[in-house]
């Protein structure tokens, strides 16, 4: 079992409060995603600073910069337990920040993060395409043309890109030539001619304002090609895969936050539940605790080695399944008409469906995890394949193991014992 050290436990307590501040905005943002909300909240202040160099958030004397995946999953669970839609609607470096921190040269990092520092800036991360989903190997967005000024010309269509309408800067994955080494990422200013983002009508996670992007001859200066200081093998598809490995535990934490919100909601609504109903609630609570451990272990694994994303895939698949089960299960426990009488729970059930499609569907994650099993690298839980204990990463320590479904595991309880709403 992983137990957070004092620093991350402190962050978790505060993030719990930050998440609570988001909940009152949830339904309004769901109804009208065009109007950003909670912009002055602590949650947004944190999310705006994640990965921004030399601008860490200091909480109770501890510095937090969002560099470690473990830190991000701890915060994301708490914020998305408050509300996933409001969390994902926040300005800040977001997914592009992780990519640029990994691939950008000093000038690119300065260009991107200085803008994030100076203004309230939404960013976008454009990978998925209409024809091939989020299969990075199948990308067709074209960056092969170079004009007479030396700029690349970007042409293609992207889909399911969060916050693209409100964003002013972001990253786009494109192809300079066939094959895995031909995939690269570039920095794109949304104000440039040829860039158009249109919101798509979504069933859930509406706060994210998921968009389609049309790219027509968008000029990309050579200095905005990410990883230009690296050899092609280090900036191509393989590097993208390592970035996704680092992001995936965070997506899992979003799903976990939604699941937890649903479970806490039903606990508050059915305080006198007993018999099979109580069993169902306790089973869900137990799953929340175990999936949290899985996500933490996955984050520790990618923090140790960004290539080690197999556990992250397993965690994402399991967390999304739990989010669906918890939201549908909570609705069932409230009986007929629950979706109409409990609109927030209906929203959670809609939101849970959306996380499935973020950063690869369940099938993709299961296939990835199975590859780790086959090649012997699906270690997981701090043990190698033979079960030998491995050292834990900085920031975590082995903690006492508790067993029994009715005893919450460490980290399972609401940090301040408050209810779910």
């Amino acid at each position, binding site marked *: 079992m992983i137990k957070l050290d004092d620093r991350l436990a402190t962050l978790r307590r505060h993030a719990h409060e930050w998440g609570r501040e988001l909940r009152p905005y949830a339904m309004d943002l769901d109804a009208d995603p065009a109007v950003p909300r909670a912009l002055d909240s602590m949650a947004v202040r944190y999310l705006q600073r994640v990965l921004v160099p030399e601008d860490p958030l200091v909480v109770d004397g501890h510095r937090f910069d969002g560099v470690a995946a473990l830190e991000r999953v701890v915060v994301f669970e708490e914020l998305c337990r408050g509300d996933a839609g409001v969390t994902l609607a926040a300005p800040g470096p977001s997914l592009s920040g992780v990519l640029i921190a990994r691939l950008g040269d000093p000038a690119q990092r300065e260009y991107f993060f200085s803008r994030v520092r100076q203004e309230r800036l939404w960013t976008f991360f454009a990978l998925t395409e209409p024809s091939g989903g989020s299969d990075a190997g199948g990308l067709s967005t074209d960056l092969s043309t170079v004009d007479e000024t030396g700029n690349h010309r970007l042409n293609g269509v992207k889909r399911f890109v969060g916050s693209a309408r409100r964003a002013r800067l972001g990253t786009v994955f494109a192809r300079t030539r066939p094959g895995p080494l031909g995939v690269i990422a570039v920095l794109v200013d949304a104000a440039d001619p040829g860039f158009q983002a249109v919101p798509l009508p979504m069933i859930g996670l509406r706060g994210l304002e998921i968009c389609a992007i049309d790219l027509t001859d968008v000029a990309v200066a050579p200095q905005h090609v990410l990883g230009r200081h690296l050899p092609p093998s280090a900036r191509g598809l393989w590097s993208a895969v390592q970035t996704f490995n680092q992001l995936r535990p965070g997506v899992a934490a979003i799903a976990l936050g939604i699941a937890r919100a649903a479970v806490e909601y039903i606990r508050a609504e059915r305080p006198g539940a007993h018999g099979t109903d109580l069993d169902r609630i306790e089973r869900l609570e137990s799953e929340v605790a175990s999936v949290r451990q899985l996500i933490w272990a996955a984050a520790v694994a990618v923090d140790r080695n960004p290539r080690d994303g197999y556990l992250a895939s397993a965690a994402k698949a399991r967390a999304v399944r739990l989010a669906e089960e918890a939201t549908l299960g909570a*609705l069932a426990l409230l009986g007929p008409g629950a979706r109409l009488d409990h609109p927030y729970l209906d929203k959670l059930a809609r939101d849970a469906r959306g996380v499935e499609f973020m950063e690869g569907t*369940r099938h993709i994650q299961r296939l990835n995890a199975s590859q780790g099993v086959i090649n012997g690298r699906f270690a997981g839980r701090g043990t190698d394949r033979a079960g030998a204990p491995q050292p834990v990463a900085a920031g975590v320590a082995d903690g006492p193991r508790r067993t029994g479904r009715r005893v919450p595991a460490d980290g399972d309880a609401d940090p301040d014992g408050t209810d779910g709403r």
Partner: protein
Amino acid sequence: MSDLDGPSCRATARRGDLATAFGRLHRTTEIPYGDRGHALVTEAVLRRCDPDAIELRRIVVESTVWVALRGPSDAPPAPLAWRRGLLWLRLGQSQWLLDQAVTYLSTRRSGDELLVNQQLVRADLADAATDHAVVEAYLDDPYATPDLHTVLTRTDRSLLRLLGGSGFLGDGPGQAAYLSELLADVYGGGPR
């Protein structure tokens, strides 16, 4: 409700026309209420019935407006025959969703392979068709009452995953599946 033709409702829903299927199901001037006094009907049915009810929300599916209502406290629940007809409707809708998934997967590729030829995908398609067969078998038996709504919701969720992000669009097949879940919530519900 004696002339209720479940298979006809199913056939219409399987063509993706939920509104017409619902119209076939509902031919009276009485609003069908769930066990807790909620209703979810098309705007056309609402106009025909003109009930003493509070409007809770509206959902648009394929240009048809559906209206969720809360009726009077003494609103009589819809008859069992009507509820069984609703299951036929939801079965047809789920089969339509399966058809959509097969069509979608038959044109999408991962690398050089069509998605519809991948084993994980095929297993899901087989499971969905099997679930449909199970539901249909029970619908032939008026005395059997397993939770068929839950089976259909689970099946729809599995099919929506196969549709990728397009299954999450408010103007795509996922919206019809969402409406189907709402109908199950109002008229099926769960344990209380």
